[in-house]
């Protein structure tokens, strides 16, 4: 289907189902229950899952395929956001021109940075991209924000003011980013029993764009161009002696992933019309590296998993405070309860980074292929067990056995 192998089609369908049903799947706990705080199915967070998923998919095209580790991809995210907000300021709150311009501007910007950075490889490439990203941050934070020429609005962040031109803005349109009149914030809430599901317009716009982005990344992975990129990672020496100049290929991969980052940045601004310089900081660049490695660099679905994992942690794990912990351990005797809370305390709430760090270490040491490799191992383990138990059963019969 659509030029994909049956395996990739299945993967695309799974991702599509997950993305489209996310408002339901991410809200497994009834609203009133104590576990409700683990629900991730609210629009703001779901948008983040998907947007950072796009960011990581793009990063994976560069890092996963060519092996060039960019430490400055947040610069393109930031540039995309600024471009989108400028579109809101100048034209109207319609997200379509904003997203298109954010992709184009990030693409042009990545041609510039990529052309210079790709003169070196390995650690020098990483440092060059990091330097460029930090320069972009400095530009956005202070240099390009002075009374004479205010492109970024510095510390406050770029936002839309009532005296902005907005030449295509008309009376009937929402005063928020919208898709031809459909506000990104409009949410349709379904209450079912104790559950409540939010179907948000902005989320679905992001989800559809994610699916297109994911489909394109599958096509890139399987194309001759993708094979060429993997060849660069595998053996650049041989490629040179095969009559190929690898630089245009790496630059193309760099620009493609920069455009993905710009798209993600544009979407962030489309969901919340504000662009700040902190989006370009090196921690943001590091985050996408973590997402990709955690999920599984060079795999198709890994980056999405990694992005979801990290964003879930950032938003959910960080909300667990001592009160919640006391609730959890209340069945224990008082002394033991306080003791356990004291032990767990540093790892939750504001200390969520600590837990994430430990998990990251464990994944890198024991599952170098990331969460995807973990999934594959579990799959193989279950498959083998079933094999042993079932003897010579048909594959169909195996699948019917309960997974325990």
């Amino acid at each position, binding site marked *: 289907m659509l030029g994909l192998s049956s395996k990739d089609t299945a993967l695309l369908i799974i991702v599509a189902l997950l993305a489209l049903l996310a408002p339901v799947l991410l809200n497994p706990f009834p609203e009133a229950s104590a576990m409700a705080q683990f629900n991730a199915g609210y629009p703001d967070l779901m948008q983040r899952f998907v947007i950072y998923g796009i960011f990581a998919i793009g990063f994976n095209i560069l890092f996963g395929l060519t092996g060039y580790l960019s430490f400055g991809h947040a610069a393109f995210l930031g540039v995309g956001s600024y471009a989108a907000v400028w579109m809101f300021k100048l034209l109207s709150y319609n997200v379509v021109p904003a997203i298109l311009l954010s992709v184009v501007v990030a693409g042009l910007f990545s041609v510039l940075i990529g052309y210079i950075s790709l003169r070196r490889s390995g650690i020098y490439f990483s440092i060059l991209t990091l330097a460029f990203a930090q320069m972009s941050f400095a530009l956005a934070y202070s240099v390009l924000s002075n009374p004479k020429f205010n492109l970024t609005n510095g510390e406050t962040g770029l936002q839309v003011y009532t005296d902005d031109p907005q030449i295509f803005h008309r009376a009937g349109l929402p005063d928020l980013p919208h898709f031809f009149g459909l506000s990104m914030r409009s949410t349709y809430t379904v209450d079912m029993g104790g559950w409540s599901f939010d179907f948000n317009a902005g989320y679905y716009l992001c989800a559809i764009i994610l699916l297109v982005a994911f489909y394109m990344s599958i*096509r*890139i992975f399987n*194309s*001759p*161009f993708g*094979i*060429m990129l*993997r*060849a660069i*990672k*595998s*053996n650049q*020496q*041989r*490629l*040179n*002696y*095969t*009559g*190929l*100049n690898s630089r*245009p*290929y790496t630059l*193309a991969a760099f620009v493609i992933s920069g455009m993905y980052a710009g798209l993600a940045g544009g979407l962030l601004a489309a969901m919340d019309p504000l662009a700040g310089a902190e989006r370009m900081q090196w921690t943001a660049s590091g985050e996408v590296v973590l997402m990709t490695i955690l999920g599984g660099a060079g795999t198709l679905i890994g980056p999405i998993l990694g992005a979801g994992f990290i964003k879930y942690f950032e938003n959910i794990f960080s909300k667990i405070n001592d009160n919640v912990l006391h609730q959890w351990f209340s069945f224990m005797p008082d002394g033991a309860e306080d003791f356990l809370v004291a032990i767990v305390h540093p790892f939750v709430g504001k200390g969520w980074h600590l837990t994430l760090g430990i998990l990251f270490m464990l994944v890198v040491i024991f599952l170098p292929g990331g969460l995807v490799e973990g999934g594959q191992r579990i799959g193989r383990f279950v498959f083998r067990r079933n094999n042993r138990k079932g003897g010579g059963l048909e594959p169909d019969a195996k699948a019917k056995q309960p997974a325990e």
Partner: protein
Amino acid sequence: MGILEVKGVGKRFGGLQALGNVNLSVAENTVHAIIGPNGAGKSTLLNCLVGKLIPDTGSVTFQGESVLGRKPHEINQMGISRVFQTPEIFGDLTVFENVMIPCFAKRDGAFRMHAYESVKDEVEIREKARLILDDVNMLEKRDMIAASLSRGDKRRLEMAMCLVQEPKLLLLDEPTAGMARADTNNTIDLLKHIKATRDITMAIIEHDMHVVFSLAERITVLAQGTPLVEDTPENIKGHPKVKEAYLGETQA
């Protein structure tokens, strides 16, 4: 005039004169071996031919065109392919993908996205890759990951990757280094087969005299960065100077 002409090439690394004044002419459609003791400058010479090093003096011309100052990929586009001492292949890719990449490069080496090219092109490339794998007896291993191949098979694959480009000159840097006797003999047979089935010139750098005397039609002996003699294998075998500089040493 030969297909490859090396005239007065010299290369100095700091205080070491790696190549003195090398003159070499490789005739078209021959197998030309370059032998010499360790440190004779064989690898330096080869690196000057493929653009990895730029000689300090002299000229290197291939089919009348200078190769000096060109990048390795440009020299490859002229029709020179190189087989490395340790097989250089794309370890993470399958055998078939390994052979497909030089097919993409073959056309002119220009950058292409390749994503939206006609299906016919890809069918052609796949067929070409299949034929060449069949030619080197690797077809049944087409879906294996290249890194998991044996040393001899890696060498075969590397040759296939070079041959699929239809080079006019194939440079071989110790093609049997580190191989067991059986693998060495297989490689000799493969090289003979390659020579017999197409118009190709080969320049071989080799330590193993068994390989050299089974394949070469001309032999140049290099010692201390200068060519000592150049002759047919029969004459080289009995040459007193060669015995002294090279064969005498190894057989003592």
